[in-house]
């Protein structure tokens, strides 16, 4: 067991990619490092264990990455998905740093693979971890252990003692026992608050009780809340999170990637009252994937149902949960708990509005759409007529929250009035809101985590060893 009375140079709070990257970097710089992971070893790695790639700038082919992905193109992509809710200076630090982060990961022993099938559009921009995020975290933890980072699992930091911009001590609970830890420098990389159900309910109202949390149940936001009470500056909308529509039968926490449903473009989506509420064919999947979490969250009881027929069944990734199937639309409605007459009327009205066109399931040039119908379905609209009829229930699944500790471009946590703290740095999801004020695109979270994790580790070690 770790001696928590030992005065470590650097204390890292958190156990995901950003935290371990910070710990490795600080250790390589010569600092003694203690890393506190709230989860037990089996569930270590925060939300990083559910990830699969990181978005990486590169001027030419780099490892598994094809072509080039310039700083400007990366920045434009980020600007588009955040609709301008970003900090350009910090964003460019993350973008430029992502290139070196690739080398950092390779040196740590991380293995990459070409883009997974079905994600070929990302083969130029995103480097995929062989085996996914848990394999990545296994490799990073093994490297950190070899370097001599002290790692405490089942250990939660509950409070930081901040005085005059200096963290003097941290209260922790390790395997159920309280300790106080002192360190010369502290890196907070403990994620957002998306798994903190009371906090979600306070932010969203009672609707939050119907949300599913896609990732780790350990993202409680404890230190985020603790620091907010001690005059630390924050950025990002405190009431918003990134959410997608996932299978309503997914577990409350940790369902991860396998609970997603790709069927929306080939379905009609109705609410509890069997009424449609949005254009399912608005844009190419997965570009529109992320908006459906919000859309479903706004429906009564935060539930929706994708309805399709046998002709559409093999156009999307299989689900882990069996589809509801029925020989008629009425029977499907009964299986889903919807009013058969209402669903029948919705399907009939939709079928009548469908106009023939060229069906191109993977292209926005698809010509199948509805006419004189509100809301319209502007692509991939084909009549729902071929039994068996198929239904999937949808609920909002939260990926992460946007509220973040405000940092400068060296990951230094800022106090209200943008005054710097003396020995406190932040990395990963807990500060990603500086760059991602809204929206998301694949692999950006991991890029921010690695880049700012390394910066935070470097700065913390420099401070501790000075």
């Amino acid at each position: 067991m770790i001696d928590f009375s030992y005065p470590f140079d650097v204390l890292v709070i958190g156990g995901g990619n950003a935290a371990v990257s910070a710990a490795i970097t600080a250790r390589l710089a010569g600092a003694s490092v203690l890393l506190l992971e709230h989860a037990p070893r089996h569930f270590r790695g925060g939300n990083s264990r559910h990830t699969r790639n990181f978005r990486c700038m590169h001027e030419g082919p780099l490892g598994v990455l094809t072509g080039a992905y310039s700083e400007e193109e990366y920045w434009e992509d980020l600007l588009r998905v955040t609709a301008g809710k970003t900090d350009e200076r910090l964003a460019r630090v993350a973008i430029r740093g992502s290139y070196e982060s690739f080398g950092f990961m390779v040196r740590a022993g991380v293995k990459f693979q070409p883009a997974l099938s079905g994600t070929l559009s990302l083969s130029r921009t995103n480097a995929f971890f062989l085996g996914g995020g848990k394999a990545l975290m296994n490799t990073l933890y093994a490297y950190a252990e070899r370097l001599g980072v002290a790692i405490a699992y089942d250990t939660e930091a509950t409070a930081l003692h901040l005085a005059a911009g200096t963290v003097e001590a941290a209260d922790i609970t390790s395997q159920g026992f309280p300790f106080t830890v002192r360190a010369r420098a502290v890196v907070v990389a403990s994620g957002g608050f998306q798994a903190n159900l009371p906090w979600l309910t306070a932010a969203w109202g009672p609707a939050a009780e119907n949300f599913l949390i896609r990732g780790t149940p350990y993202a409680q936001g404890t230190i985020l809340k603790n620091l907010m009470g001690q005059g630390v500056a924050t950025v990002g909308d405190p009431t918003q999170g990134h959410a997608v529509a996932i299978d309503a039968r997914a577990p409350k926490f940790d369902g991860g990637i396998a609970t997603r449903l790709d069927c929306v473009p080939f379905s009609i989506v109705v609410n509890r009252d069997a009424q449609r509420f949005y254009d399912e064919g608005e844009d190419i999947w997965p570009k529109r994937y992320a908006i459906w979490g919000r859309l479903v969250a706004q429906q009564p009881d935060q539930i929706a149902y994708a309805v399709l027929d046998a002709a559409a069944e093999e156009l999307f990734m299989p689900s882990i949960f069996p589809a509801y199937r029925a020989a008629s639309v009425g029977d499907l409605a009964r299986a889903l708990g919807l009013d058969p007459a209402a669903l029948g009327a919705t399907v009939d009205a939709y079928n009548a509005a469908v106009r023939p066109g060229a069906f191109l399931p993977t292209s926005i040039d698809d010509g199948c759409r509805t006419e004189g119908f509100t809301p319209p379905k502007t692509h991939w609209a084909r009549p729902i007529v071929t039994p068996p009829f198929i239904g999937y229930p949808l609920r909002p699944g939260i990926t992460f929250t946007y509220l973040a500790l405000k940092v400068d471009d060296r990951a230094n946590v800022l106090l209200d009035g943008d005054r710097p703290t003396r020995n406190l740095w932040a990395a990963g999801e807990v500060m990603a809101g500086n760059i991602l004020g809204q929206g998301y695109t694949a692999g950006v979270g991991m890029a921010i985590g690695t880049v700012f994790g390394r910066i935070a580790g470097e700065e913390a070690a420099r401070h501790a060893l000075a």
Partner: protein
Amino acid sequence: MRSPEFDGPAAALRDARRELEICNACRYCEGFCAVFPAMMRRRTFGDGDIAYLANLCHDCKGCFHACQYAPPHPFGVNLPQTLSTVRRATYEQYAWPAPLAALFHRNGVVVCAIAALGIALGLIVTLVLAGADVMTLPRSGPGSFYAVIPWGVMVGLAGTASVFVAIALSAGAVRFWRDTGGGTAVSAQPVGRAVREVLTLRYLGGGHDGADGCNDTGESFSQTRRVFHHVLFYGFALCFAATCVAAFEDHFLGLVAPYPALSAPVLLGLCGGIGMLAGSAGLIWIKVITDPAPTAKAVLGADYALLGLLAAIAANGLLLLALRESAAMGVLLAIHLGLVLAFFVLVPYSKMVHGLYRSLALLRNAIESRNPQEEA
């Protein structure tokens, strides 16, 4: 939470189907081995599909250690353990003749018992045919082996066993092939690929370019299991070659065993025996120290028994070579032939059949991945 390996084949199939459906919605492991691309070519998993995928799996455990849904996650995905359990059930399912499928129950005990019977048979046959002195008198020179066990008895037993084993394996192969999709149009290219993947153990090396190997003992990657399997496999092949060369020399050149120390049969057998001993010892060592989480305990008895039998044959053969001019030769030779006979009889009813079904699964994979449209 569950122990599919103890709940019988039907439960193992149900669990495999559930886990494969989760894997097919996740697909993070696509880069590890052939199982995942083969899985992705399907949306539903019939019993034949699962038998195929289970035998395509080389038990490298990479997917388990990378799995976000591995226990204690409630989904409890443990593909190496589940597929090992299914694999064992397929050995039983395809065993011929059907009543002998029961030999796969408590297969470790069965293998040990048949090995013991083999030793007893070797000793009794020797006693009956050559008398008690053969066990105590040193002999040497050409023909000394056949003085212990006559050539005709040796060849007769080996020949009968070989014919029986060939029929049993063919019957299993035909049924496995039919259940996993059938098809007769096999061309040279996929056969070549499958043979290459068998001989190089590609999927114990990680299965992709620049791979670091498999998760032999835990979260880190290594090629150790692949190396030991190679040493065992090629050691076995050298011993087999030694026997073939000896048979050739005996039959066509009139050279009668035992052969001199610097002859081809002895050198091949010496190298092969050392390889078999080192390889089986290494594989046993890995099984002992490996992380038990992704292993199926129910198959371990069969694994250890076969490795133990191979090690015993090799050790006994080396001892026989060293002591062949001493009084111990008679006993050692009788034991050796008894063990070898037991081994051959056990090929269709022990872990040895994995070679057959794994090779066929690799062949099916080579055919499928070349021409995905062929599938129904």
